[in-house]
């Protein structure tokens, strides 16, 4: 009803304060979390904080991060992709079969796998915008189909459940150097995937905050009707986001295939939720319209640190999932709380 609950027009908050402005950033919760987790493990384990230790936990964080970033963009755009994990396997197997089984040049196999991944992403996106069904359902379908396809095709071609001998293909070495090698820094071998991860975080942040497309991503996730009514190509934006996620899956699949030189047919299954969790820890709203690429990367970093840190402390690994679950809840609580603070600080 039209009771006069009007906000006092002339009341102004004089200064917001640096803390409060910081709190309005979506990734601040994850940043806090990362600092706490690092401090916790670093205090107890000298190996964890050593160069080799850092290289070790950055390794899983990097590949997870490379996937978490596009997944975060997609979530900001208001959609999910449950097929992202298994698509990593699809890419790896495609490369594995083309190189190891058919002896194709590694670069050629990478290009074909990329085309396949982009087609799959387009398929996901097109179905979602066309049918207007929840992306949860559509990509769950793709997830199951790819899972079956991965196993079926691999078995049909190799008679086993893995594609191997990837390192026997022509041009394996240069591709390996770019996607899977290690870089020596001060006597410690760091995975080159870490560099990819950092570069992609920067790129995604720039796109999100400093380009028109980034503006559109926020708007289609925040209020798709509003976006459409002011001329934002909402359908195209979403399709591109799905294809970006697929491109991320291609990158990680390529990295895995070249590094491991063999890929199992069940690769990537179950990982899709981990990507989403990393994005959520990083401050992405499940409802869309809010989040950041840096946050998703921090979420991945936390994951990497916890995963390896538990090993360094010699804990019973049976508790790993418990710890992850607790962390997810904490992250969500922190985000909710921080967002409320942010809104308070604006009023």
């Amino acid at each position: 009803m039209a009771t006069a609950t009007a906000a006092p027009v002339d009341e102004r908050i004089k200064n917001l304060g640096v803390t409060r402005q910081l709190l309005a950033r979506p990734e601040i919760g994850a940043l806090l979390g990362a600092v706490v987790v690092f401090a916790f493990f670093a205090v107890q384990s000298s190996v964890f904080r050593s160069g080799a230790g850092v290289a070790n936990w950055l390794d899983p964080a990097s590949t997870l991060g490379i996937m978490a970033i596009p997944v975060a963009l997609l979530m900001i755009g208001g959609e999910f992709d449950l097929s992202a994990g298994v698509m990593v396997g699809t890419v790896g197997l495609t490369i594995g079969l083309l190189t190891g089984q058919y002896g194709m040049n590694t670069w050629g196999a990478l290009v074909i796998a990329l085309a396949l991944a982009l087609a799959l992403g387009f398929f996901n996106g097109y179905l979602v915008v066309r049918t207007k069904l929840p992306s949860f359902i559509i990509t769950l379908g793709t997830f199951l189909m790819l899972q079956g396809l991965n196993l079926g095709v691999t078995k049909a071609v190799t008679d086993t459940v893995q594609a191997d001998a990837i390192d026997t293909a022509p041009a394996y070495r240069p591709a390996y150097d770019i996607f899977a090698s290690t870089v020596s820094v001060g006597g410690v071998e760091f995975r080159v995937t870490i560099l990819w991860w950092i570069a992609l975080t920067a790129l995604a942040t720039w796109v999100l905050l400093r380009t028109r497309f980034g503006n559109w991503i926020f708007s289609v996730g925040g209020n798709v009707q509003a976006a459409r009514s002011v001329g934002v190509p909402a359908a195209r934006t979403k399709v591109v986001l799905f294809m970006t996620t697929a491109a991320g899956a291609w990158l990680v699949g390529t990295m895995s295939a070249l590094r491991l030189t063999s890929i199992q047919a069940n690769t990537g299954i179950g990982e899709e939720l981990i990507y989403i969790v990393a994005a959520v820890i990083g401050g992405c709203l499940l409802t869309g319209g809010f989040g950041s690429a840096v946050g998703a990367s921090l979420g991945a970093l936390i994951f990497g640190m916890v995963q390896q840190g538990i090993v360094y402390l010699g804990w019973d690994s049976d508790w790993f999932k418990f710890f992850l679950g607790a962390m997810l809840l904490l992250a969500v609580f922190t985000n909710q709380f921080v967002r409320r603070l942010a809104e308070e600080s604006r009023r």
Partner: protein
Amino acid sequence: MSETAQADPVPAAAPEAAPLLEVRDIGKYFGSVIALQGVSTQVAPGQVCCVLGDNGAGKSTLIKILSGVHQQDTGEYLIDGEPIRLANPRAALDRGIATVYQDLAMVPLMPIWRNFFLGSEPTKGRGPLRRLDVAKARDITRRELAGMGIDIRDPDQPVGTLSGGERQSVAIARAVHFGARVLILDEPTSALGVKQAGVVLRYIAQARDRGLAVVFITHNPHHAYPVGDRFVLLKRGRSLGDFAKSEVGLPELTRLMAGGAELEELSHELEREPQA
């Protein structure tokens, strides 16, 4: 799905000083239901035309025709004296007809400046380095809003934290900035308190003074009368009349709105919340 506007190219000699937007005997049917019939009015630059009516009177059908969501079944729709049929909302926008809906085309979680420029973002640089001109966007947002008399604290503030009146004002300012000639406002004051409604009415007057033709839809004659130049009354899909301000007073308008004699027993409050 999306065709371009089918503007019937009738280069008929337009009468001099033609109104910017005009409807003549316009009507719309949904199956056997007559949603709108025989409604005529016009609005010239620098004028406010108020469309008044109860819920179900046909107000929203009328705006939807004006903004290109629906197409009229009978009658004529003229822009600059030229009869047209708008195929979709984009076609209306292309002709400078901007509609600010009640639920607002805003993304609550995004900052004001991002909302302001959504879909028409200013960029600098070229090729892969083409990027948002953030400084310019912030600056223009602040300036345009100030020009409408809206003093925002911080263009980075999410729109969701603005009050209802402020949000309406941002939407109006945006329409004005992007070259709207006709501004259609769908119940911009209905969800607002008295004070906030007053703020929005001020912005409507601002837009009018800038030379826009404004179509202001409301069910509250108290909101309509102070800013309106013309008043169209709708009831059950038909026009009860199209008056210039000089032809009708507020009491008369209120009486017509409420449907005559019952008025005296009805409080102001009840007028704002009519039964179906």
